[in-house]
């Protein structure tokens, strides 16, 4: 089996965590070649070459590849596809945009959000917000899949694989980048953080979300939010955890003022330890919490922030 793993590259830098986790899944299938794509990606390619189990790194640079636009990158991947049995990527917003396009261009089905590799043709994936797990077997010539990173351990850095530059494809010119609005943050990234503190509608306002951020900063944690908190404007969209937001599985997840709707649980129930703080003792979040505290968050969270060394 020959696997092409599409690395997650942001602004020329390799997202090591998500790429290394998807690599762990890819290695279970066969020999792994990593593709780095970007307007400049030599650094990313060097970083990818160090990951344990990578046999080769391909680096495709072009201005057309700078902003994760689906059309030119899908064309590039398709142009390489004949050498591979599998094309996989960590399940990020970039790959969820690009890989289904690749699959349809190859006339194969996409296999989204793989949580386990059974064999080269057979995979597990969650459906219905994780309320059921489906085992699917693909009959397609080439398997195109996105890997849910929260369920795989990251591969270590070990080797030094060969890096080769490859030519860019012609840009179909169907779309152009206008701007990015990305808030700079010193906090760890939500999907790779060891600890996540999330706030829900119960927090009540954007201002009061500072209480959540204060606890997060004390713990060195990333900040998450429920959809209700994002919809209400308390938190930015990229903090949303859940079925239709990000899926996280940190060592510690602290849910504050979150009721525990299945759509939210879908994004965090694989966390190792779950803490819930909610003033309603009947809140469904307590059914998945290892430690539940029935309390007013405005009282409990500042205290907790103080008491953590």
């Amino acid at each position, binding site marked *: 089996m020959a696997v092409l793993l599409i690395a997650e590259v942001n602004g020329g830098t390799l997202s090591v965590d998500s790429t290394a986790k998807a690599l762990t899944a890819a290695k279970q299938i066969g020999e792994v070649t990593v593709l780095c794509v970007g307007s400049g990606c030599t650094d990313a390619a060097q970083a990818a070459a160090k990951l344990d189990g990578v046999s080769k790194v391909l680096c495709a640079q072009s201005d057309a590849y700078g*902003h994760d636009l*689906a*059309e030119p990158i*899908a064309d590039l991947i398709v142009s390489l596809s004949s050498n591979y049995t599998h094309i996989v990527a960590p399940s*990020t*917003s*970039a790959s*969820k*945009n690009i890989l*289904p*396009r690749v*699959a*349809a261009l190859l006339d*194969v*089905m*996409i*296999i*989204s*959000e793989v949580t386990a590799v059974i064999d080269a043709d*057979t995979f597990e994936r969650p*459906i*219905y917000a994780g*309320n*059921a*797990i*489906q*085992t*699917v*077997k*693909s*009959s397609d010539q080439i398997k195109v899949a996105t890997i849910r990173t929260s369920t795989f351990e990251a591969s270590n850095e070990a080797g030094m694989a060969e890096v080769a530059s490859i030519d860019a494809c012609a840009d179909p*010119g*169907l*779309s*152009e980048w*206008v*701007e*990015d*609005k990305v*808030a700079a943050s010193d906090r760890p990234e939500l999907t790779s953080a060891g600890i996540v503190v999330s706030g829900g509608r119960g927090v009540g306002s954007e201002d009061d979300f500072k209480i959540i951020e204060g606890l997060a900063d004390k713990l060195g944690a990333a900040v998450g939010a429920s959809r209700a908190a994002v919809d209400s404007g308390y938190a*930015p*969209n*990229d903090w949303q955890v859940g*079925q*239709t937001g990000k899926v996280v599985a940190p060592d510690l997840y602290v849910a504050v003022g979150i009721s525990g709707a299945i*759509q939210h649980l879908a994004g965090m*129930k694989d966390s190792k330890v779950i803490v819930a703080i909610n003033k309603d*003792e009947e809140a469904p979040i*307590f*059914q*998945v*919490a*290892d*430690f*539940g*505290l029935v309390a007013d968050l405005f009282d409990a969270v500042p*205290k*907790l922030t103080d*008491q*953590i060394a």
Partner: protein
Amino acid sequence: MKVLVPVKRVIDYNVKVRVKADGSGVDLANVKMSMNPFDEIAVEQAIRLKEAGQAEEVIAVSIGVKQNQETLRTALAMGADRAILVVATEDVHTDIEPLAVAKILKAVIDEENPGIVLAGKQAIDNDMNATGQMLAALTGWSQATFVSELSVEGNSAVVTREVDGGLQTIKVTMPTIVTVDLRLNEPRYASLPNIMKAKKKPLDEKSAEDLGVDVTPRLKIESTGEPEARLAGIKVGSVEELVEKLKEVGAV
């Protein structure tokens, strides 16, 4: 310009799904079915384009079983002008894969020539998040996924997308395929008079064969199981006790 809105009939998002004991799938008999929530947002956006004078006609299309008529009637009651049902299976438990759905939608596009397709970002049953992107590939059109803002300006559309790092704005050439995210708009409720009116709006029925599309699945479902249940934990009485417990398990 015509707007095409694919709407999927899915298990209602409030229903707790049950996996069938024999592992053959999820029990869909006698459960409440609704329009996929993302598709309500897409229908709403299509109607707004029409209200703004940027579109002439809104066509809703659904692929699946006969019962999808209900879903299409909902779209018509919200304000879509007409509907197309493509019957691709007789069994409610047979879902049609995004690749086949995209091929059917491509065939509909060839007949209808819409200027824009507004689809949902993902269907909440299978969570594939794929149909729009696959349709864009098959048509060779541009794609704008996970969209939370949309403005159509002549031959292009400017969209803001919800991405992992925050928001990205891109400009795509029309015709285009858009997949809508949660924060694009708040869908309207259909009023009673509009529900009555919707019963008289045209609803065309075709089959996948009529459109020449083979819907044979590429993914065989070997089994469907329950996820491992999480054991319920304990309630702690105070912040002090919480901190103690977290230290005990080494979480802080």
